[in-house]
């Protein structure tokens, strides 16, 4: 029986050794891949930083109001952030590739799913970013237009437009990521519906007089008389 144990042990050790020998080159390969991945990621990050600086990406994100958000969150500027994100994503990608080389079976699927997930992540980030840009642009445009056209409470109008657009954007991003799709959808529908309902009630009941004045002003002669008291700027 002792010979059997030794033999088994031997066998096991040999197996292990074989497995190790099998693994070692792979491990080496993985390390090489990881290191080269780091190098590539670094280069990409630098290149991206330059490109973003040339295309004045920071200014765009300033416009979007993203810079302000990031500042509040004590994060670096958006071009820096983006470069770093790209760096990490690329490096992680290489590492994952390396791990794949290791040949651990179960991992393949996760790896595949990871790679499938990446583009959607990027798209979602894009959506959020441009949603922020749009939100600040449109809310500002609404604010200016309302102020110049003498609409009542322009700030509220601007803020509500911004909120709506951001909510839209975030829901689209989540949908893109595939996280809690239905929950988000339902929550959004409820919130939006409630908001609209609330506004109508508030406006219709509480703002009845205001509504009447508003309509009168838009459609009746007062506007004309007012116009006559105005001076021509040119």
């Amino acid at each position, binding site marked *: 029986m002792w010979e059997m144990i030794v033999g088994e042990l031997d066998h096991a050790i040999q197996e292990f050794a074989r497995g190790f020998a099998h693994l070692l080159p792979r491990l080496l390969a993985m390390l090489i891949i990881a290191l080269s991945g780091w190098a590539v990621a670094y280069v990409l990050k630098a290149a991206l930083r330059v490109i973003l600086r040339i295309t004045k990406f920071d200014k765009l994100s300033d416009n979007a109001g993203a810079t302000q958000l990031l500042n509040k969150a004590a994060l670096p500027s958006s071009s820096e952030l983006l470069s770093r994100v790209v760096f990490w994503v690329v490096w992680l990608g290489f590492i994952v590739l390396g791990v794949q080389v290791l040949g651990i079976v179960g991992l393949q699927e996760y790896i595949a799913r990871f790679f499938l997930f990446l583009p959607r992540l990027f798209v979602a980030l894009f959506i959020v970013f441009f949603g922020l840009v749009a939100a600040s642009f449109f809310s*500002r445009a609404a604010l200016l237009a309302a102020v110049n056209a003498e609409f009542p409470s322009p700030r509220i109008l601007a803020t509500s437009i911004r909120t709506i657009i951001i909510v839209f954007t975030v829901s689209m991003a989540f949908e893109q990521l595939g996280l809690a799709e239905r929950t988000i959808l339902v929550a959004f529908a409820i919130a939006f519906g409630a908001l609209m309902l609330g506004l109508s009630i508030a406006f219709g009941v509480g703002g009845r007089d205001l509504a009447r004045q508003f309509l009168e002003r838009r459609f009746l002669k007062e506007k004309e008389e*007012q116009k006559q008291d105005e*001076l021509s700027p040119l």
Partner: protein
Amino acid sequence: MTGGRLDERSVLNDDFLRQLISVGEVDLLVGVPTHNSARTIGQTVQAIRVGLLKYFPRERVVIVNADGGSKDSTREVIAAASINDPQHPSGVYALRTLHCISTVYGGEPATEIAMHTILAAAELLRAKACAIVSPETTSIAPDWIERLLRPVYRDDFDLVTPVYGRHKFDGLLLRNLVYPMTRALYAQRVREPYAVEFAFSGRLGSHLMEQQVWDHGAGGVGTEMRVTLSAMTGEYRLCQSFLGTKQHLDRGSADLVPAMRQTVGTLFWSLEPNFQLWSADRGTESVPTFGPEYELNVEPIRVNRKRLHQLFTSGVAELEPVLKSILSAQTLAEVQAIATLPEDDFRYPHELWVKTAYEFAASYHKSVINRDHIIQALAPLYRGKVYTFLLENRDASGAQVEANVEALCLTFERLKPYLLDLWNARE
């Protein structure tokens, strides 16, 4: 041929081109852009015809109408006015055929396209002098044609801008912002840099064609302003000519923002490409002016001042987040301070206004936010300035108003270095 010339072909449709061929070379061209102008166009065309026949009887002349697709009877009225008869109702005899041609340009009715059409016609017909006349001015008279064209045709000037006998409260955007700022930066005292009646030489016309002054995409929306600025920034001889009193179809303050886009917006836009020119330190020169001395009309008129004040204060309050990105902290604080003043004590001092304007210009240059939004944000502040102007000049005579405007101009000139600092700073 540059890309600009290729565009020329698309603004001249076949029918119009045929009309141009028939007209042939001319000495004088009068362009009239119209859109649903049937109310006033008849009077305008007659005034032009009489003016041309009376003051330029031997010259080859043509009236070119660029119409934006009028739905009313504008084109019929013009066609009727172009019938050539030897005995004109006014008794002025026509030595030559007086041509009057008309075309409808495609797309949206826009002064830019009308201007492009007229410039193209002037270039093809090799007109020595061209005048543009607006059908909206109801006080046009035949001698306006002489006053516009003579300096170009006989005295060799390149651009004639008008001077009107205005009411003291008319054209305040020009008087409080566009004129002083243009004067301070471009060093020429042109009273009406935005003009709907003006005249230019063939030489300047070709230059304007090259510059594509009608081109929306380049950012400058106001063609009229661009014409003046092009002449000022090139080596062209400018002059002014007194035309008469200005009466036009009513326009209310709802048109303020578009007016600002076309004037202030164009001015701001022009600063970048012409930096070398306006940043140089030179005093302003006055521009030769023809015509009699004029007095501002000081008839009292009804103005809703309260509304202006209200718009200013509410604008300053509501637009705070926007103004924060445009103005410096100190200027914003000062503006907010005066917004708290009671109505009767309200005053927007010259210096603060100038700083406001310059900071807006610098922010426009840096595109801190969308440029169109910057212009829109200026509107409520401008209203505050107008309110001050109305208060200060309520009982003023014409001469006093002129003195006030002159003081504002000098403040603009004095603070020009401030703009230069801002311009170069945030680099």
